[in-house]
């Protein structure tokens, strides 16, 4: 591979990786604060994309407007998820996996019913790629990366600088202790689900601007989110971001070498590898 191609791969990887981290937030937040493993994560993202797509088709709204709209539209789903998953018995991790697995399938079929199996895309405008330091990157992707990093950064500030955010972090570290300190863990739980739904929904719109939507596209995203959560460590934003960038780069390099159709395989293989390494204690993370 030529140096130019390598650098290009790296750049693409970083850009994509930041988006992966952003998407994975929706999954990681819920996991950290409620211990729920939401296997329907990918479907929630894709659904957000479909909602954005329909709005775009109907009223031609620009993506920047579609993002918050889809995020808003996804909030009720977050509440529903919270309602269902709040009642799951021990072991929470395994039972939430089962329940959300089914919910994900349900969503997948709903989407199939409403939008059919055709591949859809929210087409961006045909602006030329932006050249940054000699590397040409598509504008749309850069915008996505910017929004991703911006949101991650904003969330970091909220989590560390506000009382509300600190309450969330305390709940993620030790719900019992947090409860004893007067933090309303139920509200924290609901907040995490709502926030996650909004991120998933809005992120879905961004996803749909450069990736074809189809009902089964969610599985890969869920696997990615799982990989990042394991890699970055549950409850660590910086870890998530770094993990996202790492996977983005690894994926980009693998793709240049092997070809784009192998992307999903790379993701699945990475997840397996991380799971095995994690259980040997080689990867960062809270024991849970």
């Amino acid at each position, binding site marked *: 591979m030529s140096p130019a191609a390598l650098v290009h791969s790296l750049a693409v990887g970083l850009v994509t990786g930041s988006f992966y981290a952003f998407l994975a937030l929706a999954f990681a937040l819920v996991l950290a604060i409620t211990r729920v*493993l939401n296997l329907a994560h990918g479907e929630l993202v894709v659904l957000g994309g479909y909602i954005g797509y329909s709005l775009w088709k109907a009223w031609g709204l620009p993506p920047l407007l579609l993002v918050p709209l889809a995020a808003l539209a996804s909030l009720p789903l977050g509440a529903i998820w919270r309602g*269902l998953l709040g009642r*799951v018995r021990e072991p929470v991790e395994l039972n939430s996996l089962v*329940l959300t*697995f089914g919910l994900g*399938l349900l969503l997948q079929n709903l989407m199939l019913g409403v939008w059919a199996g055709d591949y859809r895309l929210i087409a961006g405008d045909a602006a030329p790629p932006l050249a940054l330091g000699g590397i040409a990157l598509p504008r749309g992707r850069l915008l996505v990366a910017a929004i991703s990093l911006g949101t991650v950064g904003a969330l970091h500030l909220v989590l560390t600088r506000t009382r509300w955010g600190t309450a969330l972090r305390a709940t993620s570290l030790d719900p019992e202790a947090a409860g004893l300190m007067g933090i309303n863990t139920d509200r924290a739980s609901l907040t995490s689900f709502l926030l996650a739904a909004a991120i998933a929904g809005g992120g879905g719109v961004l996803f749909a601007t450069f990736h074809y939507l189809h009902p089964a596209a969610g599985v890969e995203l869920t696997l990615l989110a799982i990989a990042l959560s394991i890699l970055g460590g549950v409850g660590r934003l910086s870890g998530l971001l770094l993990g996202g960038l790492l996977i983005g780069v690894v994926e980009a390099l693998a793709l240049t070498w092997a070809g784009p159709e192998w992307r999903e395989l790379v993701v699945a*293989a990475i997840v*397996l590898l991380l799971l095995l390494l994690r259980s040997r204690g080689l990867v960062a993370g809270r024991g849970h």
Partner: protein
Amino acid sequence: MADPGGGGGLGKERRRSPQGGPVSRLGVGGLLLAVIFPFLAGFHPYYLYLLGTGFLLASLASAWGLLAYAGQISFGHAAFFGVGAYTTALLALELGVTPWLGILIAGGAGALAALPIGAAAHLLRGAYLALGSLAYAELLRVLALNWTGLTGGGAGLIGLPGLHLGGELEFARERAGGYYLSLAVLLLALAVFALLRRSRVGLAWAAIREREERAQLLGVSPTRYKLLAFACSGALAGLVGALYAHAVRFIEPDLVFGRYFSILPLIMATFGGLHTLLGPPAGALVLYLVSELLFHPLLPRLHQLPYALALIGVVFFLPRGLAGLLGRR
């Protein structure tokens, strides 16, 4: 859902066969009914096809239940199902192997496919294993999708031969051959499970499921028995996959390696009663028939709803599944 990794109260009747309780009478009655059903239904092809498929799904659920009995919860059974389907398909199309032999070999292939994830079970527990099995199935799906040279890629494989026994053993034809074949496979799956349950192997599996560490301290080798459980479950699932391939005569990666065949046995077995013998197949038949007979004609878009509802129901209301309702512990 009853905690399958620990304190579920369903390992009990391991030694003794159902002592003429309501379930065993139900089982025998069900078997008799199944045998005479084609006559009752006047050999109507749709009903034979329906129940034949139901028996196949029940076999798959039973295979999944066997693995769950050993405490291993798989979210990726489609991996073994798909390997079975593709093995027999490729053998038939490339080498002209007769489907009967192909199906047997597919069982072996399913067992082999189960070994890597079975070995991973040494390291992965509970949710981690669930996720790992999910990723594994996904891995195989993408492999099948992209290894076009071997598998025909996304277009799948068409024109698979049906099963012949003298005449055509069509799954939808009057001769009901396919129906009885599916029933036979189900009985085979149940027989294998029943025999293993009563043996040393079943005791080891139950011990691992109930408390793996203690089982180790009492001399049980979890690695060995988990591998065995995965191999058995994978073999049965592969068998069913192969049968499915020759029944519908067309397979593609997104279908046979997809989430549908991973989640169905999970829901069916859990709904029917985890850790019991007859629970998984019963759950499978009930859910499948409800979905096909009630929902499909009335609300076709939502015909997967009973599965989702069953899942929610089990998680919240029926931790022991149907078997629990009948008082089987």
